[in-house]
């Protein structure tokens, strides 16, 4: 952190000012002039919170994508299909058993098994051939999309939110002050907050597993140089299978999350593939903290964009990607 400030004082200053402005906008009571110019503070706060929670979802999808890419150099363009598959599994389980938690577990295991199968049957045969692997994932995404369309049809599905998570909770954020001087607090859906906290917990757990455990050390070594790692006697194929299973399973969990606070339908696979691509390009390919940062940036940009410039929202996301590619082609937090 201090090194970053020393090396890029101007950028550090810009970042600090931006964060300060954002914090002021979130916590201060807006003066009437600002409300007249920008709109209600409640709308703004909702957009911010929606953006951050959406970022949590994007992180779940993109972290698996970036992990698989970092270790195996496999651009898994079927990652969106894994997301949607997990969502459909979660939907089926939650309607069958009525348990929301169980649907997560089954979706994780189911999609992870599919990932293991893919790695063993398909990708192991073409190791080191990046382009061919990518082509195969494109073919697989088409096949999966059509199979899922076959089974589930073109309908919209939504995973039932459990009763103990339904309803808004008041947050200690003041949106406005009534004429009587009584502050109005923001109400926000509990389920989104819980999911966001869960994705933060998963992110921290992943970070700890990668940085504090032996297997994490092996994975990090593999990201840096998998040939040397294999030469030291590590059973690299096993590591590959494990990482693919974890990455796919995370996509499956994300599918259930997405099915809970959005909906599942054909086409969502592409949407989340695009999201993970952009998140990973912005954050840095193969970097978990990069995926977290990229996910929050893209989530915020998307939500704020859709509130304040509705018909050009996607352009904001896209411009962020362009800007990052122009200034720092390897991504914000990549080490390369």
């Amino acid at each position, binding site marked *: 952190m201090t090194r970053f400030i020393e090396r890029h004082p101007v950028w550090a200053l810009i970042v600090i000012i931006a964060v300060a402005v954002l914090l002021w906008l979130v916590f201060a009571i807006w003066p009437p002039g600002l409300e007249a110019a920008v709109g209600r503070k409640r709308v703004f706060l909702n957009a911010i919170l929606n953006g951050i929670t959406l970022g949590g979802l994007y992180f779940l999808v993109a972290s698996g994508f970036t992990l698989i890419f970092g270790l195996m*150099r496999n*651009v898994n*363009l079927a990652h969106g299909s894994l997301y949607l598959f997990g969502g459909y599994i979660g939907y089926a389980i939650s309607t069958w058993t009525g348990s929301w938690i169980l649907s997560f577990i089954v979706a994780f295991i189911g999609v992870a098994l599919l990932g293991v199968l893919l790695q063993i049957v398909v990708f192991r045969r073409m190791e080191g051939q*990046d*382009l*061919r692997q*990518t*082509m*195969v994932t*494109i*073919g*697989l*995404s*088409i*096949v999966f*999309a*059509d*199979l899922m369309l*076959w089974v589930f049809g073109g309908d919209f599905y939504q995973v039932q939110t459990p009763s103990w998570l339904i309803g808004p909770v008041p947050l200690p954020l003041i949106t406005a002050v009534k004429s009587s001087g009584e502050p109005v607090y923001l109400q926000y859906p509990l389920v989104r907050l819980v999911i966001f906290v869960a994705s933060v917990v998963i992110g921290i757990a992943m970070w700890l597993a990668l940085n504090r455990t032996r297997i994490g050390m092996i994975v990090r070594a593999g990201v840096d140089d998998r040939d040397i790692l294999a030469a030291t006697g590590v059973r690299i194929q096993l590591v590959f299978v494990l990482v693919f299973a974890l990455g796919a399973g995370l996509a499956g969990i994300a599918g259930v999350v997405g099915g809970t606070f959005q909906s599942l339908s054909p086409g969502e696979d*592409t*949407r989340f*593939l*695009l999201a993970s*691509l*952009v998140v*990973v*390009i912005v954050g840095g*390919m193969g970097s978990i903290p990069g995926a977290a940062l990229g996910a929050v940036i893209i989530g915020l940009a998307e939500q704020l964009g859709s509130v304040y410039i*509705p*018909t*050009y*929202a*996607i*352009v904001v*996301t*896209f411009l962020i*990607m*362009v800007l990052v*590619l*122009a200034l720092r*082609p*390897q991504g914000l937090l990549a080490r390369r």
Partner: protein
Amino acid sequence: MSLLQSTQLRPDASASAARRAFIRAWPEFQNPVAWLVALILVIMPLIANGFFLIEIFGTTLILGIIALSLMFLAGYGGMVSLMQLTIAGFAGYMVAVFGVSANTNISLGWPWWLATPMALALATLFGTLGGALAVRTEGIYTIMITLAIGAAFYYFTNQNWAIFNGHTGINTVATPQFWGVDWRSDIAFYYVILGVAAICYFAVQYVSRAPFGLALQGVRDNARRMAALGFNTNAHRIAAYAFASFVAALGGVLQVWNYRQISPGSVSVGACIDILIIAIVGGITRPIGPFIGALIFVLLRTFALDFLVKVGLDGNRFRLLIGLGFLAIVFWSSDGVIGLWERWRRRDASAGARPGGGRHG
């Protein structure tokens, strides 16, 4: 005397040298099969009726042109760009926006001879900028970035009503009519498509053998060595994107004239991937590959439904068929159908053990 003889010989020798150089530059002209295919394509309106002429062969050539631009980038530049259809779609949208259409609040109503060059120029610019972005990173990242560009454009056209008219798109786009000919009538339009396809095909063929194309192939094979030799590798790559964008834009203009409408569905991610499938299935080492791939794709798309129903399967599983076919090609042939055919011919030639048989491909 000897001097005189040599001066007498020289014109003859240089003529034969020029002939040899010409043959080396354009081996197609020596190939009887190529002449036969060209002849069939030219007299096609006599053979095929309107449906086959436009729906099958016209569409094949249009998709072939767009896939050809991908083949040029992937085959000679080593850059697999998934945004070629997006560039084509952008050109199509620009034709609709600048030209005449039923959406009078959006279309500017320019005549076609002004709107078309404008669309081509803007689409080429768009593709070049996208390419300049994509060459910032290398290799496998190109796919990710170009796919992100393509997908972002698709969602943008869906969201934006001011220019792209949202998900309904722009309808009843006017097509050129001059010299007393309706150029969208089946036969005239077929020849327009055929002419553009031929120009694109030979242009790609020519560029691939020109110094620029050779340098590009050098950059593909070893960018570091080319940079050490003093070539600006990124400039070559971006120029390749510019050329490919122009080819794709031509295809896009033809496509919007063909369907007379354009909507986000025409630039969807699935459609972008279809172009990749066409190029890969046909083979990306030679310009003829994309056209073969396009023919297979269009035939499958048109007849798979009837075929599947006849075999007793669900007719809607066309994409499953395409996906599985694509997977099979990627698994067993790195060079698409052309590669399979060549391998088969080589095996045939070696089995027959004909002395001196088998041309060099």
